């Protein structure tokens, strides 16, 4: 199929982008890497009246490190995240997960902001942000606000972003560089969205009990979800034996949806497997 007709604007800076977003009528879709938006438009699943191309908006690019952690501009591409030592050291969980996100060609264009704004339930990035207690910076003509990842992902392709806002940046807390990280996903083919996956971080040294674990699953529900039951079961414990069993058992409380290739009971089983395997790697 071909995309339905749309207008195209390519503002030179953030002010221009925000002005268009707040002033123009209709359904305006910001365009980042286009790796999700363009296929959806070509399937006519998405039929925005205007594409707002963010390619020239310098304010949305770049990674900076400060005392509070990292600020990653929304338009930073996966390929740039993987190559940037600020990211791989400041947010090692991202480094661990990146090879599993899509394929190299898609990582060359896909952006962190696009993934966050899209909130695909099977995408890795929202779960990574939940596990790192990251925050999402939103900007509009009326100002900036920062929303915790826990409060940002609301449902299927649904986020706390208002229509006149852009995702400006992702903030990764400073302790993300020190926390232990775990990641595991099950995808039929490399680069596919996962059937089930988990990202987690915890305090404490390797081999020690898990301090304040944060565990987020993707590919199970209508969005990336924290597994608070499992977090409680594993808190200050060694992830083994009955403790681990209790953590896995607690997953049955998660809101799990089946999909074309796996009914909910299979997803639940796989969730337990990925949790065990991610923990084994920590």
């Amino acid at each position, binding site marked *: *199929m*071909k*995309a*339905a*007709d749309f207008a195209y604007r390519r503002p030179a800076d953030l002010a221009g982008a925000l002005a268009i977003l707040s002033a123009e009528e209709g359904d305006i879709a910001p365009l980042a890497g286009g790796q999700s938006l363009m296929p959806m438009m070509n*399937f*006519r699943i998405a039929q925005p009246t205007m594409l707002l191309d963010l390619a020239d908006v310098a304010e949305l690019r770049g990674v900076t490190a400060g005392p509070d952690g990292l600020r990653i501009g929304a338009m930073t591409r996966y390929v740039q995240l993987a190559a940037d030592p600020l990211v791989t050291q400041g947010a090692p969980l991202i480094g661990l997960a990146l090879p599993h996100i899509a394929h190299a060609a898609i990582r060359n264009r896909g952006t962190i902001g696009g993934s966050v704004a899209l909130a695909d339930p099977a995408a890795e990035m929202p779960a990574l942000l939940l596990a790192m207690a990251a925050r999402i910076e939103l900007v509009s003509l009326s100002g900036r606000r920062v929303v915790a990842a826990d409060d940002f992902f609301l449902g299927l392709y649904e986020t706390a972003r208002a229509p006149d806002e852009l995702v400006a940046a992702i903030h990764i807390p400073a302790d993300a560089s020190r926390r232990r990280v775990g990641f595991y996903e*099950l995808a*039929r*083919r*490399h*680069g*596919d*969205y996962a*059937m089930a996956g988990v990202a987690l971080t915890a305090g404490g040294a390797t081999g020690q009990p898990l301090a304040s674990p944060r565990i987020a699953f993707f590919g199970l529900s209508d969005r990336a979800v924290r597994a608070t039951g499992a977090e409680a079961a594993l808190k200050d414990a060694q992830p083994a034996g009955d403790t681990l069993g209790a953590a896995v058992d607690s997953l049955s409380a998660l809101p799990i949806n089946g999909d*074309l*290739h*796996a*009914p909910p009971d*299979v997803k639940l*089983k*796989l969730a337990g*497997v990925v949790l065990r395997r991610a923990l084994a790697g920590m």
Partner: protein
Amino acid sequence: MSGPKLSFDQPNRYIGQPVPRADAQRLLMGRGRFVDDMQAPRMVHAAFLRSPVAHGRIVSLDVAAARRMPGVVAVITGADLVGVVEPYVGVLSHLAGLRSAPQMPMAVGRVRWQGEPVAMVLAQSRAEAEDAVAEIHLDLEDLPAATDMERALDPDAPVIHPEFGSNLAWTRTVNVGDVDAALKGQDITIVEREFRFGRHTGVTLEARATLVEYDPAEDQLTVLYSGQAPHMMQFIFAKHFGMLEENVRVISQDVGGSFGIKIHTYGDEIAAAAAARMLGRPVKFVADRFESFMTDIHARDHAVRGRMAVGRAGHIVALDFDDVTGIGPYSMYPRTSAIEANQVLNLTGAPYVVPNYRATSKVVFQNKTLMCQYRAVGHPIAMAICDGLLEEAAAAIGMDPVEIRRRNLMRDDSYPRTSASGMKLDDLSHQKALEKLVEMMDYARLRENQARLRQQGIHRGIGFVSMVEVTNPSPMFYGIGGAPIASQDGATVRLDAGGGVHVSSSVTEQGQGTNAILQQIVAGVLGVDIARVKVTTGDTRTTPYGGGTWASRGAGIGGEAALLAAQALKEQVLDVAAVILQTQADKLDVADGSVVDAGGGAARMTLSDLARTVYYRGNELPSDMKPELVATRHYRVTDMPFVFTNGAMAAEVEVDVETGFVRVVNFWAVEDCGRVINPRLVDEQVRGGVVQGIGGALYEECLYSEDGQLLTTTMADYLVPMAAEMPDIHVAHIETPTKTSILGAKGAGEAGTGGAPAAVMNAVNDALRPLGASIFQMPMTPARVLAALGRAGH
């Protein structure tokens, strides 16, 4: 048949060599010429409104608003084509009893599958055509749909064609020996299993595409067509538009894969051609990926209950099965949708000595996309039934799967003979292939490794298949039943003044390398540099008449025709040379583009000199010499209905018993396709086929909702196998040339697809067996493997 002394038995630079494909560089440089690259003046684009439901009555169809949309040139409905296109019926007389209803390119009155074309918009751009499609108002009354093939014959199932009284399209039983008596025999072990094969489709890189021009001044229809059987399509367009065949020209330039998908009569393509005639303007239709998944023919979709009885020493005593397959609401025209079931009946057990054989297939109508021939038609089912049951039987009597094959395979020295189902077999090498396979894979070491890994909780399995492949078909396949499908092919080979050679052949190129092997054969037989040989295929106006590509026949049939034509041209060249050089033809030969003294002697004159003499200075030749430097030869298989090939394959898999994921760790294939013309091309045909077979075994399935909605309409939902998951595929050959031709080449295009699923399934079951689990449903998805483990209490 045995011909003259074979030119390729002498030192030959081409036949048997891994010569690179001449067109590979052009394609890799982006210089391919695919249908969608083509533009024509005043061209319009077609887009279709397709049925959103599996079964319904058209209450009203209002196209007025669509006609007013920007860029729209015309809107044509199914009813508009009544009287323009003669309906078609997909039956063949040799498939006795097969029935199907008349089909129109677009639905008239009723829709019978989701995706069936209902109306067509012709507009200045495809995007505008799609915009207008959205403005067509179609009011449908839903009718109950028969979607589940296993319930399609139930008394309360909705009947799709009321005039038939039931949804049965065709049934056939093969009954040889006395299965019932054999099953009551003493000291036998019987295994019985239920197999399920999911629907697949052949996902071509280039979607179906056609660009049709009509010139009313000459009543000339020219069809640029991404397909594999130009002459068949010429017949179909002519017949159903009431035109003379010579007024229809079908041209297939570069084709980006076909796999049997692009060899059928698709309503959207016929409708696009009809529109070109009605409008007098060129019409382009290119299927998008949605349309490909929804309307390209599907294949497989069989449910089989089978049993095998073996004696104590492992000999097969009886093989018995019932098969049901759903084909959609019509039998596809003109090849029919009963061929796959027929192949299953004909091929199951064909590698083995099976004294008692009984098999029934029921082919049923259902409200889903039409099913028809896709690469390795019927083979994966036939091989999985027999070799699946054979390995189960081996396990039941505690015998190694290789050993039970050794005891049952037809002996290499026992040909010619027939299979249980009566197929004529010759020149096969099952025993040699199996032994070579076992050696190549280092079987004993693999078993040791398997046992060691099992102690570490790693579940590997090894599975085998011994298989046959139908290739080089004679007229017995289609022509005998009245189909407009040639089983013979022709080649014209011409020497031009500059010393270059042109080959024109009726077999076709879809990316598999046909043109390359034609070049090799002609260059090798004639004795010229391969760079001087140009090949034309895929044009009904300029090539000889023939069948195109299907049933792995390009090399065996098209190649033989090219060989015969090159030999004939060589004789003509030597006749002329003998006169010019005042010697006898048998004292001369051709090598490296020159006439030489026979027996490797000195060059006497170049072919260019010879041709220039003939073409420019005929005055130098005796007046009674009438030289021809062009020769045409045709070839068909005469002594056999088909030329079977054989192979032996094995898969090593690892099953993750926690997740149900299956990884193919290694794959080995030993193939006997007779004379190997180009080992590189054959190896890659085998590998590509194996990958498609692994796709069928593990990944690919067209999934439907209960009410007949196709759910797998994107590449994200329909999982094709991808490189990262594929194992190393080790290929080796046995070369048993067929006696039916001089070239001795059999086909090689479908073996991998036909054999790999059985080998992978057997390997998975070998891995699961110690856990008490088994699976006979393809694709073997994680969910299904977990369910199998769950049934076994894991």
